[in-house]
């Protein structure tokens, strides 16, 4: 998924200045131009052929689906007749990612602000380093840790939420079972996307022009007011693009979800109940035993995830583009 989200943090290359220097005609130049143009074209060709392959296999599968691909609450391409639908997966993917974002973004922005504007310099560097280190942990390790440590510990929190916030419907736990739920997955994903959101936000906050901050200070602003008046507005598009990078990872996370979640093909807004599923988790779980057609069906679901990620990225770009003139920044 990283590859689909990475364009976000680097703005598109500026248009070539008029009258760009012509090649001097030397051999090296020509070779280099050929190479770079070739790699650019190759990338496009590869992307296009992947898209064509995915769509072709997906169409093969969907055309034989006896259920409704968008609304069926089941995944049984091996059945007779074959019936499968992505409703549960779409729901689970979106809900777990939303939970992750709600938890992770405020915390990450807080950490980033602390590192860039509050912490003494001696503390800031090691702290940033530790946060970055979180990103180096493989997701299967997060998964095992989640299943063995987080799940048992969350049982208390689940009971508490159920008891005091059960009236919200969302936090009502109606089924027995340990905490292998979308909520737990959301918490785990939040931890996993924390480092990327933090480090990108931190970089943006560090780029706030000193003059802006000093101007605020000169007007008598407290440190919090400086942050509020100069740092946050300047960094807003940066925070958004950082969040989208994190969201990209959360949407596509596979092993950690597959290890922690107890999958089922039911849609329930009770996020504490065990059950649900995500696109990537479902592919990981079903791929091994799937026959040719089953794999086509999984590829079709992968295509939906691809489109979903594309939409999220597109939305993020729109937001950033609209904010650009206000913040004067290209994160």
């Amino acid at each position, binding site marked *: 998924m990283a590859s689909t989200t990475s364009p976000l943090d680097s703005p598109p290359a500026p248009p070539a200045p008029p009258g760009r220097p012509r090649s001097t005609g030397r051999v090296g130049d020509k070779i280099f131009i050929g190479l770079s143009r070739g790699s650019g074209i190759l990338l496009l060709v590869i992307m296009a052929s992947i898209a064509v392959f995915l769509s072709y296999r997906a169409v093969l599968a969907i055309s034989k689906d006896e259920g409704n691909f968008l609304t069926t609450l089941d995944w049984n391409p091996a059945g007779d007749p074959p019936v499968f639908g992505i409703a549960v997966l779409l729901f689970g993917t979106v809900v777990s990612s939303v939970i992750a974002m709600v938890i992770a973004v405020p915390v990450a922005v807080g950490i980033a602000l602390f590192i860039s504007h509050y912490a003494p310099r001696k503390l800031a560097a090691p702290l940033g380093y530790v946060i970055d280190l979180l990103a180096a942990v493989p997701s299967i390790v997060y998964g095992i840790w989640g299943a063995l440590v987080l799940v*048992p510990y969350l049982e208390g929190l689940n009971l508490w939420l159920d008891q005091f916030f059960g009236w919200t419907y969302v936090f009502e736990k109606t089924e*027995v*079972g340990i905490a292998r739920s979308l909520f737990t997955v959301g918490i785990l994903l939040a931890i996993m996307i924390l480092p990327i959101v933090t480090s990108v936000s931190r970089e943006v906050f560090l780029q706030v022009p000193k003059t802006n901050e000093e101007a605020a200070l000169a007007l008598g602003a407290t440190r919090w007011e400086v942050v509020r008046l100069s740092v946050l507005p300047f960094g807003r598009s940066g925070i958004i693009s950082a969040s989208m990078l994190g969201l990209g990872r959360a949407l596509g996370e596979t092993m950690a979800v597959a290890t922690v979640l*107890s999958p*089922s093909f039911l849609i329930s807004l009770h996020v504490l109940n065990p059950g649900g599923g995500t696109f990537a988790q479902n592919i990981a779980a*079903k791929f091994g*035993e799937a026959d040719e057609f*089953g794999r086509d069906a999984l590829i079709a679901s992968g295509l939906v995830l691809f489109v979903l990620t594309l939409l999220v990225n597109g939305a993020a770009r729109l937001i950033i583009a609209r904010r650009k003139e206000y913040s004067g920044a290209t994160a």
Partner: protein
Amino acid sequence: MKLQRKNRLRATALGALAVSGALVLTACGSDDNSGADADGGGKTTAAASTIACDGAKGQLRASGSSAQKNAMDLWVKNYMAACSGVQVNYNSSSSGEGIVAFNQGTVGFAGSDSALKPEEVAESKKICGTGQGINLPMVGGPVAIGFHLEGVDDLVLDAPTLAKIFDTKIKKWNDPAIAALNEGAKLPDKAIQPFHRSEDSGTTQNLGKYLAAAAPADWKYEAEKKWPAPGGQAASGSSGVASQVKAVDGSIGYFELSYAASQDISTVDIDTGGAAPVEATSENASKAIAAAKIKGTGKDLALDLDYTTKAEGAYPLVLVTYEVVCDTGNKADTLGTVKSFLTYTSSEDGQKVLTDAGYAPIPEAINAKVRETVAALS
């Protein structure tokens, strides 16, 4: 600057050295292991002497069911110790992948938890040329129902009760239906947490077949590899289900017997309606497989298991896994090895290995036919 650059170069060189060193070391390591294995196999198995290596040569690739992995590991080890220069490589991925690989012609034989479907047989004709894919029952095993309930070590259940538990119709451990089968047991007022496999699995399909056959009134689902009932929790793989059952008080789940043994999980005795409830053991599973009929036609030996058997000491919830080969038209370069290897696995010595690994040998009446078929492979 220059110094720095030099240092960096040196560091890179060191790194490269370390990496290549590690590679060399691991390579040595794996060589040593296989050597040790071969030695160990040679020493421990006098059985190796009965392995006939005629016609076996080169490398045989096979792939499929992970349910027979432990048996295959032992067989391959013994076989390779006896036949030097022959390599058998069983990749225990899954039945599905094994059959796909078989029908693409990349493996000599495939291991599968269930017999080939008609369309898979049709596809196999492309690979087998003159023949088609057939199923040879090779490994049997009991599917244990493991449970975890503080204060209860022995539990008897029958098929209808099991069906209702896994269908979440019975929700508490002190339900009258369970109490009636376990007089004197102190059943707590605790919620039952049934666990099933999250991925498609031959084990799930076998449990489904058993429940559908033995409790048709309470289990209305079709026996498929996918878990059919809406309730319950899921975990990945037999090992995943077993570790959840191990960890969660009030849980119940199903997996191959070896997982129950290795994780020390109590298993349910099944009340078949016979004289006494039957424990899940290799021996009891063999007794139930003996009641099976061969449903395959021609050389195909696919079995129709009798899940409703009431024979004394027969544990009805059993799994039979097959080796899938071409009856005729096997590839010339692997045919000799396939024949020689499967002759060993279906031999008396080969089947004896199974009991030690938590599996059940195929009963002699069926096994005799398997040997006959293997001998006629071409």
